[in-house]
């Protein structure tokens, strides 16, 4: 008993650190560990993942009293798209054919990995346009953050708000319908489509993930998918890991975050495309 509790606690810490740095839920670590190493039924693994997503989000929230990176306006505006998408997705489970969607979203992730690689090579992190985007300006989405690694205040603009909103809706739909972590899609919508710098994208994704997950968490809570002996050590580990991860992320150079990010979403994208064709890795 104590043996497995300690292992899950440690897995949680790792998933929390990685999840908070990248703005993804950590399901990518937790689900395989729980299903493969612990032989846990996928139903309980998904329940545990949902708890870990919320713990990552909330742990990242409390790492600092005031979150310098977070763009609360972008978060709340896009959250409308994601939560509506997630609820529609959950309703459509079993109604629509998912194979095609896995391929579509997988390709989107691969495109995003490729795009991020381009950004990494060009070194262009922050969008500066003479003519600011009209919608972004009206919604007051442009902002700035203090980068602890670069030791300077970074002013940034966002653009392509409708495209970002659409991808966010897709991210919600995917998480509700396919049961996959939508964190990667959220970062992609902000970073790839709206041209927001990676650090605020990741921090904003972290906040949004928690809200989106909470909207569907009650389903799993009340239908008995959340096993206390698994979820309790996991939640505590992830909460702790996320507070560490948030501190690490603030001090990492954006290009390093990108270097960790690219292989992870590349792998996720490939896995999803293959799953769409009926192949499981």
């Amino acid at each position, binding site marked *: 008993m104590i043996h497995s509790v300690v292992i899950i606690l440690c897995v949680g810490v790792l998933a929390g650190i990685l999840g908070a740095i990248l703005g993804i839920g950590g399901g990518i670590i937790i689900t395989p560990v729980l299903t493969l190493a612990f032989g846990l039924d996928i139903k309980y693994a998904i329940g545990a993942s949902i*708890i870990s997503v*919320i713990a990552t989000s909330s742990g990242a929230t409390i790492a600092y009293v005031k979150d310098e990176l977070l763009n609360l306006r972008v978060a709340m505006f896009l959250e409308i798209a994601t939560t509506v998408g997630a609820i529609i997705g959950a309703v459509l489970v079993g109604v629509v054919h998912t194979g095609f969607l896995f391929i579509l979203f997988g390709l989107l992730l691969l495109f995003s990995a490729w795009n991020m690689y381009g950004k990494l090579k060009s070194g262009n992190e922050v969008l500066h346009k003479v003519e600011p985007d009209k919608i972004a300006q009206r919604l007051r989405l442009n902002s700035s953050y203090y980068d602890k690694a670069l030791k300077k205040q970074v002013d940034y603009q966002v653009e392509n708000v409708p495209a970002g909103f659409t991808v966010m809706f897709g991210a919600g739909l995917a998480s509700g319908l396919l049961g996959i972590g939508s964190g990667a899609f959220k970062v992609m919508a902000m970073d790839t489509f709206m041209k927001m710098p990676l650090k605020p994208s990741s921090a904003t994704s972290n906040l949004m993930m928690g809200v989106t997950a*909470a909207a569907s968490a009650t389903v799993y809570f009340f239908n008995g998918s959340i096993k206390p002996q698994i979820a309790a050590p996991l939640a505590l580990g992830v909460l702790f890991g996320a507070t560490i991860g948030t501190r690490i992320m603030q001090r990492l150079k954006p290009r390093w975050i990108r270097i960790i990010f690219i292989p992870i979403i590349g792998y996720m994208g490939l896995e999803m495309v293959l799953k769409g064709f009926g192949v499981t890795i």
Partner: protein
Amino acid sequence: MQQEMNQVEQLIGVILQIGVIISAIIIGVGLLALLITGKSGYPAGSFPTHFGAIFSGIAQFKPYAIIMLGLFALILTPVLRVVVSIYAFFKERDLLYVVITTIVLIILIFGMAIGYLGK
């Protein structure tokens, strides 16, 4: 104005920290009780998933019931985040975002209600 905003942000940060820490403590107490007593309080493989069962379990200090309460509190922390954000935008007199964030809260509560009532 700026000073007032900083105070608001400070207050919100502390409220959120308290919310998350309280849920972590409840989960931690339940987990410790489980490890120390070695008993979950329920037959093997079962655990309480409804409020009635959870609260009557807590009255008898059953570890699984305490953990489930803590996990539910954790699920509520993002809701707290949205609620205090509405307050923050209100204090900034940013009505557009008071409306946007309120819509998010309504959708969120709707989603949670579906989970409670349905499936």
